[in-house]
């Protein structure tokens, strides 16, 4: 088992775009949740991982005491060989909490910056502001957690091209080791979704979004951040090993409320509502809500649409090793069609998206779905 994901579904504030499993932390049974989570972690068969990733929600919304309980349990129970990441919000990374993280072996922080524009941060209902970003990075550097990822978003309401330039300017100044820069996706069950439905909120059209995306790629390229995935940028030593588990179609446990995992040929996910999660763990000693077994055809499809997200694409040899057949044979028609369209590059070793292909990614991914 390569990786372990741990979900902390609590936040001090709920962002208007967020559709992950989360609740306001106030009055929640946080300690009971950690009890249940620890029970789930204890039930895992494997104990040695290459990567552990604690995400949310907001893991830093936990109190220092709660944090320490979780951290110490993880440290006693598991080993992690390469990358141990915590997600953090800029206004919550006190030196006390960062010390804890550092002391218990966390070696990477994913910092939810999202934007450098206070107006936009307000629309997103983020709990931090412009100043918090600098303070938190200061703390990180002081404590020595220098390997952090700056998480940004674009295509936000009210955002202009100037905001992209501003963000690029601060990236240049702050020099994070890694950047995730995602486009805002409006998901159902979010505040934004409802506002858009009511006509109270407008999002720029696809063309503007594409322009911004192109500028993001270009700007980060100039600053020395190679693009290694559709929305992720870093030099090779700082690429996120944990996220690459997903894209390489490798196995991971997902633990905590609403978390997703992939073990053997089975994808599964956990019960979402926190009280149900706790109850089910206590009463049934399991929290898995549903398990989906993948056929080989489906595994191959996922191999393709995940692998092609990465700049390196899908390695032909890895494909052959895993599925015992050549990708050129299996996807002969599809590859010819996509090469014709100039959406796919094939250098004999890798199959990868061209720049044009990246702009129409879903169109390309769809082509590999044989079962639909």
């Amino acid at each position: 088992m390569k990786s372990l994901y741990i979900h902390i579904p609590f936040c001090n504030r709920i962002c208007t775009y967020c559709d992950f499993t989360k609740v306001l932390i106030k009055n929640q049974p946080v300690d009971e949740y950690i009890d249940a989570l620890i029970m789930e972690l204890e039930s895992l068969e494997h104990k040695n991982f290459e990567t552990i990733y604690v995400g949310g929600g907001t893991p830093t919304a936990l109190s220092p005491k709660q944090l320490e309980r979780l951290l110490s349990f993880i440290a006693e129970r598991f080993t992690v060989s390469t990358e141990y990441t915590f997600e953090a919000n800029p206004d919550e990374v006190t030196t006390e909490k960062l010390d804890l993280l550092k002391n218990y072996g966390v070696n990477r922080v994913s910092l939810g910056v999202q934007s450098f524009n206070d107006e936009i941060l307000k629309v997103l209902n983020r709990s931090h502001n412009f100043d918090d970003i600098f303070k938190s990075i200061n703390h990180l550097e002081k404590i020595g957690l220098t390997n952090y990822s700056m998480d940004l978003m674009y295509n936000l309401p009210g955002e202009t091209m100037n905001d992209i330039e501003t963000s690029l300017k601060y990236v240049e100044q702050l020099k994070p080791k890694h950047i995730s820069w995602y486009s805002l996706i409006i998901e159902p069950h979010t505040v934004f979704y409802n506002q858009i439905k009511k006509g109270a909120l407008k999002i720029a059209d696809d063309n503007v979004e594409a322009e911004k995306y192109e500028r993001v790629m270009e700007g980060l390229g100039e600053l020395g951040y190679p693009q290694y995935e559709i929305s992720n940028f870093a030099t090779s030593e700082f690429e996120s090993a944990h996220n690459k588990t997903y894209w390489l179609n490798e196995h991971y446990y997902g633990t905590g409320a609403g978390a997703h995992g992939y073990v053997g040929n089975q994808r599964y996910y956990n019960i979402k509502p926190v009280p149900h999660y706790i109850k089910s763990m206590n009463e049934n000693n399991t929290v898995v809500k549903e398990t989906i077994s993948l056929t080989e055809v489906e595994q191959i499809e996922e191999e393709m649409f995940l692998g092609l997200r990465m700049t390196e694409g899908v390695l032909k040899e890895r494909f052959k090793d895993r599925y015992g057949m050549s990708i050129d044979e299996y996807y002969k028609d599809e590859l010819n069609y996509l090469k014709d369209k100039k959406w796919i590059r094939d250098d004999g070793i890798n199959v990868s998206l061209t720049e044009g292909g990246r702009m129409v990614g879903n169109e390309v991914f769809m082509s590999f779905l044989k079962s639909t």
Partner: protein
Amino acid sequence: MKIIMIIGIILTFECIESWVLMNDNERIARQEKIRNFSIIAHIDHGKSTLADRILENTKSVADREMKTQLLDSMDLERERGITIKLNAVQLKYTAKDGEDYIFHLIDTPGHVDFTYEVSRSLAACEGAVLVVDAAQGIEAQTLANVYLALDNDLELMPVINKIDLPAADPERVAQEVEDIIGLDKDDAVLASAKSNIGIEDILETIVDMVPPPDGDVSAPLKALIFDSMYDPYRGVISSIRIVDGVVKPGDKIQMMATGKTFEVAEVGINTPKPMPVKELSVGDVGYIVAAIKNVGDSRVGDTITHADNPAAEPLEGYKTMNPMVFCGMYPIDSNQYNDLREAFEKLELNDSSLQYEPETSQALGFGFRTGFLGLLHMEIIQERIEREFGIDLIATAPSVIYEVSMTDGSIVSVDNPAQMPDPQKIDRIEEPYVKAQIMVPNDYVGAVMELCQKKRGNFITMDYLDDIRVNIIYEIPLSEIVFDFFDQLKSNTKGYASFDYEIIGYKESNLVKMDILLNNEKVDALSIIVHRDFAYERGKIIVEKLKKLIPRQQFEVPVQAAIGQKIISRTNIKSMGKNVLSKCYGGDISRKRKLLEKQKEGKKKMKSVGSVEIPQEAFLSVLKMDED
């Protein structure tokens, strides 16, 4: 064990009853006890509920088999809450006079598009129960059906339904029935089908007022085919009404229109489940199976007789209804062309108003130009083809038939806008007009007039039926009616308007063909005929609409509306931006898969025209005038 035996005996007894051979005297006695009737009503006045109650109260259906709208057997009918196809069922009723009567209830559709079906079922009856809503009173459709029933010499029995509604005013409505239709208001039965009030009175009235069928039991067989369906295992199953004579399994029958002969495999009645019987004789309404493989051999309206003792003359049959609305129907997957033809063949069997002939479109390939009675009819057929036959379709915008007088003196009928001749060769164009009758509370008169004006209508007259209700008559081009007139009428009057129309003939109009160009190529399937005065505005709305409906392509696509060579409106669909940048959902790969699958399914429903992919709804959108 004992109980089971008793049930067995009862069942056997039931069966024996229908399997005993009768002599002619018994048949004549039986004929006297037959009552054939249908129920007519405006849509939503409670026809199907009343049919359910009648079925219950005659104990012909066990309660456990009851589900609402029992006679509506198509999924589509139950979903939409409407009756589309006819259904005939045999019931036994023991009247207060102590005699047993045989009822044949023939259910009919209520929508204006299905007038043809109504007229067919009425031809198989001697009486009709006229259901009028106790709150809403007589509606446009009620009148239309009453006239149909009177044309067929039917005995009419008014029923004022829904009398237990708070808004019910049975007195006023009964008076309306007397004033407007001319039926004695004292004959009206007050009922509530939903609450099971007055049902027995209705049944007694049927016994008293509906005459037993005429017809000679010893004359050569004459049976009217009023409906047919196709069963993959048994061939054609036709619904018939025996007018003269007797038919039984083993008989050699002949179709009088085609001359083809078949051997009867089974005759039966619907209870409402099909139940084989020994014979059908004069006045019976039932079904016949004769291993008829070719759907064209058992046409609705044809007369069945005996091959060795044929009747001299066939029955009158039906006035064929001419389709009013035409559209092109094309399979999205061009390999399904033959499947589509077979689907039409099977649907045509019990829907002779459906017309289709092969046509080719540059944009859409091989398909059919198809004719319908109206827009609902078209939608229903399209939906049935997609559901029952599994063929995804593109339907082009509906068109009427234009009569085009050419400069050389010839006249051309055009039912496909793409085939409109070159304007230089056209002397003038005439289009069909309807007389539209709209009944509405007086608060909405303004809204109705505004809509009719917008639809190029000419005001004819307006009458007050009572203090509140107004009957407005307009002459409106049929082309304006066929698309969204009814929808708009309903929304502009909060659903209070009722509407009926009849074709009154052709009138000259200043019409032009408007072409739509995508990526600078004319898409013939998107061409429409418009009035010159409305062309500019329509062109603008259409291109904007297409811009919204057609997904971004991999290149910029100009959308233009043109009359002849002249571009009257244009816009651009920008090239595809992105559709990939979604997050990885914290490892939720199943979700990503579902999104991709959904997108791929959506793509399958699009038609590639040249290099542009067009979704189904784009083809219909060109006629919708609403701006969003």
